[in-house]
């Protein structure tokens, strides 16, 4: 492999990423905005932490359609978890509990999904087949997610190339994990069964920043339908990363696009360093074939040790085992990510698979500080017959879990001789990632025998094509030409008001900048004034603009008119004051001036500006500020 050491994030160049062969693709999950869930008639988007009942389930691996077991499934089965679901009867029915078979797929959701497929220039499948994708972690009570591919082979423009859209699927959302300790995992079910689409890109991105940018484009394209859910958890990205010689590793559930660059950088670094570790092992003559290990029960030897976790364990009558990794001396302290070492890879496996969730769950002889005394280590070394060039890993727990942990320590250590294991990894807050599970493959797919295939007709697609929003990047180009402020362009381009904008500018010839500001910035201001801006619809805005166009409402009065309309829930022409004659305006100015003369101003030079403000307060809806300025003669 190439001689290269990872630099700090800020110092990495595009060239550096090219050197390590950075490759990344995305899986973008977006909840759709529907009234009901995907396979039952429960209301969608009703979130609550309250629950009325609990259900307990266990998951067992089953065969795939082609008669094979999936590796992830077998791994999850090893964990032997009790899985507890919290059920709220308002948002969950017997379908989500897996006590009622599915109802036919929600057509509203399928239409939205198909629309997204068309936006991504995909070819829509002729017949939809619902599959069961196994998830033995319990995140879905059935043990599988109902999912179907509806679109294939799309593309989006990016820089001067295109990014492939490999496939898009429509699926039901999973539960939210509340806790996972020992052999008990608890889930909340309020999100379960919500329709979402997954968009999978090709591994076309070459740097961490490209990954984030493409994620942004895809997310915006889907949002431009304005039929997706917003807010925390409604959009999540899985990011696939590999480097030359590495393996596709999936980082799961990235909640914010802004975190993608660091996460992908750290994963690339981890893979690169694991490959370097492999080379070091080979240099020491350790390969998959020559790998040697042994394990012993050392409970009696460490019974008197002062290191608290082990002391507590032996006091509770738990076992302590030692795994000797022949020739691994120093390698558990091999750096994989910033402040993260190979020992973490092992500790993660022990935590997830052997369910030893109290950290630290292992200690090892490559990092002696703060654990056992060197005398203790010497005793153990003698007892288990370890040599100077070996590493000892200690793990403790009940018999079953410790046994499983020993196996996993050996499995993971041995994998280091091969390279980077295929894994699903969890995004951590500091940008690094941790083991979640073995990367599942095609073997976890099974056809859903509960539902028939659904034909997607050309007629259905025709209707959807007519109502397809214009691609937002085309809109942006036009907005720039019109001189719309940069901070408004992106938002407007994916806004539900984008078609209205086009109409107001093209048909009614209203100033594009004013229109853009009214459509995008005003709602934000009104929200700050505690208006319910969900009531702001196309009709209301169009009517306000009609009054403006007809000269019944001043430019400065639009915001006030919107506020008043929102309070009433609708725009009424009666909300507008009668237009003022020049005489009336002059009278108001005179009257206001008289009032002002009774007040002593601190700074008399400003008197005209103060007068202007006071007059505008009275006439904002009906007279343009320009005219008042002229009359006051500032």
């Amino acid at each position, binding site marked *: 492999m190439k001689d290269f050491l990872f630099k700090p994030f800020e110092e990495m160049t595009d060239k550096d990423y090219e050197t390590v062969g950075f490759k990344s693709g995305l899986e973008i999950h977006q909840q759709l905005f529907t009234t009901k869930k995907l396979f039952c008639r429960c209301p969608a988007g009703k979130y609550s932490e309250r629950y009325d009942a609990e259900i*307990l389930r266990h998951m067992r691996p089953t065969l795939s359609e082609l008669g094979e077991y999936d590796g992830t499934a077998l791994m999850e089965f090893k964990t032997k978890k009790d899985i507890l679901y919290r059920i709220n009867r308002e948002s969950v029915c017997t379908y989500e509990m897996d006590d009622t*078979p599915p109802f036919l797929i929600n057509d509203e959701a399928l239409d939205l999904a198909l629309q997204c497929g068309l936006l991504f220039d995909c070819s829509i499948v002729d017949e939809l087949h619902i599959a069961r994708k196994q998830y033995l972690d319990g995140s879905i009570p*059935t*043990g599988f997610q109902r999912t179907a591919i509806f679109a294939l082979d799309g593309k989006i423009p990016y820089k001067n190339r295109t990014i492939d859209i490999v496939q898009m699927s429509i699926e039901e959302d999973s539960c939210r994990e509340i806790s996972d300790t020992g052999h008990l995992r608890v889930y909340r079910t309020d999100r379960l069964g919500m329709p979402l689409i997954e968009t999978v890109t090709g591994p076309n991105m070459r740097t961490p920043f490209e990954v984030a940018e493409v994620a942004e484009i895809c997310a915006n394209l889907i949002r431009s339908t304005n039929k997706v859910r917003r807010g925390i958890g409604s959009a999540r990205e899985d990011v696939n990363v590999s480097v030359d010689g590495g393996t596709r590793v999936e980082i799961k559930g990235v909640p914010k696009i802004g975190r993608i660059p660091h996460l992908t950088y750290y994963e690339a670094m981890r893979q690169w360093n694991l490959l370097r570790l492999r080379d070091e092992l080979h240099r020491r003559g350790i390969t998959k074939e020559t790998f040697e290990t042994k394990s012993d029960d050392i409970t009696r030897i460490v019974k008197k040790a002062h290191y608290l976790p082990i002391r507590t364990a032996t006091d509770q009558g738990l076992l302590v085992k030692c795994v000797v990794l022949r020739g691994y001396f120093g390698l558990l302290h091999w750096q994989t990510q910033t402040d993260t070492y190979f020992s973490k890879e092992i500790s993660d496996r022990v935590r997830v698979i052997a369910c030893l969730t109290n950290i630290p769950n292992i200690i090892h002889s490559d990092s002696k500080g703060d654990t056992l005394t060197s005398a203790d280590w010497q005793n153990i070394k003698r007892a288990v017959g370890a040599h100077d060039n070996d590493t000892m890993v200690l793990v403790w727990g009940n018999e079953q879990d410790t046994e499983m942990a020993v196996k996993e320590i050996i499995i993971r250590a041995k994998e280091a001789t091969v390279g980077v294991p295929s894994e699903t990894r969890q995004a951590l807050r500091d940008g690094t990632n941790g083991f979640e599970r073995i990367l599942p493959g095609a073997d976890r*797919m099974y056809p859903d025998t509960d539902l028939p*295939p659904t034909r997607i007709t050309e007629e259905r697609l025709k209707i959807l094509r007519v109502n397809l929003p214009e691609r937002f990047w085309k809109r942006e180009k036009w907005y720039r030409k019109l001189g719309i402020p940069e901070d408004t362009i992106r938002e407007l381009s994916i806004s539900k008001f984008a078609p209205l904008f086009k109409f107001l500018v093209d048909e009614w010839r209203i100033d594009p900048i004013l229109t853009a500001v009214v459509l995008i910035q005003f709602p934000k201001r009104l929200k700050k004034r505690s208006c319910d801006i969900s009531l702001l619809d196309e009709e209301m805005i169009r009517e306000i603009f009609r009054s403006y166009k007809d000269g019944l409402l001043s430019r400065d009065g639009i915001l006030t008119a919107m506020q008043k309309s929102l309070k009433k829930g609708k725009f009424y022409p009666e909300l507008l004051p009668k237009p003022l004659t020049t005489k009336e305006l002059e009278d108001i100015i005179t009257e206001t001036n008289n009032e002002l003369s009774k007040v002593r101003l601190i700074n008399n030079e400003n008197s005209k500006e103060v007068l202007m403000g006071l007059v505008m307060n009275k006439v904002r809806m009906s007279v343009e500020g320009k005219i008042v300025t002229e009359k006051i003669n500032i």
Partner: protein
Amino acid sequence: MADDNYKGYRGKALSVLKNFSALVWSDVEITTTKGKYKGIILPRSETADPFHIVIKMPIGYNIGVAADLVTDIQIRGRKEAHYKIPEKDFPRDPSKPNVKLLGTGGTIASRLDYRTGAVIPAFSPGELYGSVPELANYCNLETEKLYGVFSENMGPDQWIGTAEAIGREIEKGIDGIVIGHGTDTMHHTAAVLSFMVQNSPVPIVMVGSQRSSDRPSSDAALNLMHSVKTAAESDIAEVMVCMFGPTSDYYGLLHRGTRVRKMHSSYRSTFRTIGDIPIAKVSRDEITPLRQDYKRRRKDRNVKINTAFEEKVSIVYYYPNMKPDIIESLIDNNYKGIVIAGTGLGHVNKPLYPALKRAHEKGISIYMTVQTLWGYVQMYVYDTGRDMMELGVIPGENMLPEVAYMKLCWALGQTTDQKKVKEIMLTSIAGEITEREPSNGYLIYQGGLPEVEEFISKYVK
């Protein structure tokens, strides 16, 4: 019948596949006017339309490709599915009891059937051990596949065959019997076996699953463990149904074969004891009797198998406005017995009386049960009831309608003497009639009530 090489395909899809000699299980690249698809051609369900070709893409998803858009199919190879649960020899431990699992079908062990797109039954001790190795903790297991039918297709031949198989196994010295059965008519079979197999010295446990075993959260494995434990270790020598107590993977209930009924079309905890309480609770670790009046396990082999059965018996589920022609047609078709599921305490409308009278005069045995399921037939309370008894309708106490049906088939199989039939019908043989209904025999809690909600929130459902 469709060609096996093109399993399930017909019409346009079939002709396109034939045109390119693309057999099912071919690994192909299909070119259409819309684009290219790579994958394995799967068999198609016979009930699906004739316009699409199903392929499994390399990522494991299936899609249907419109046959009339196909311009080319390139065959790259072949990968046929071998859906086989890994078999492992079931371990033998001489210190453990011997249990026989008799299979009749159903979803307790099943696999995908492409022809119908549904799941079909499949099982062997090796397969069961391969998928539920925990079974070896309880017993030495042998299996015999008696039938492979969905439970709605169970009938007299299968009932008689199963009863005889049970007799054979008991004589051979088995310690317990488990019967795998589809759940829809499990309580019918449980009832008829309760009559056909008498004085069993060992437990006879019927079991099934509400979620097929091809699902990770299936109840099949746990139900199987519960039933095998019961057959191996319990001292309850009766015909029982062993299915989930709550919907959770928690414990099972052992229901008496004559008092049990499937009460929900899809819930895991669908089986309930009606008008009484279950015999016991069973978990992976223990069997907890809920009552003491059950027949005990014995060392002897003195089982009596009586497979008498008369097929010409019907259940009439009465509804207001029923016309006498329903009864007339049974008379005209030479039915020998009628079980009525009447309203309330056991009633039908007056217009039916003449038909009932004629049926009685023709020697047809008529027994009344209640469609309320809970409670006794009480024909003395109202005049209408007394009138009907005059006509020859005999109150069936608190026998469940399906149980009364099975018993009448069995009784009429033994004798045509109405008096003897009545004696058999009204003598409780296997708990089908109880002398009293305990106050906790009818508990259908009403959701929404604060005290019920409190209960639900306290205990895992």
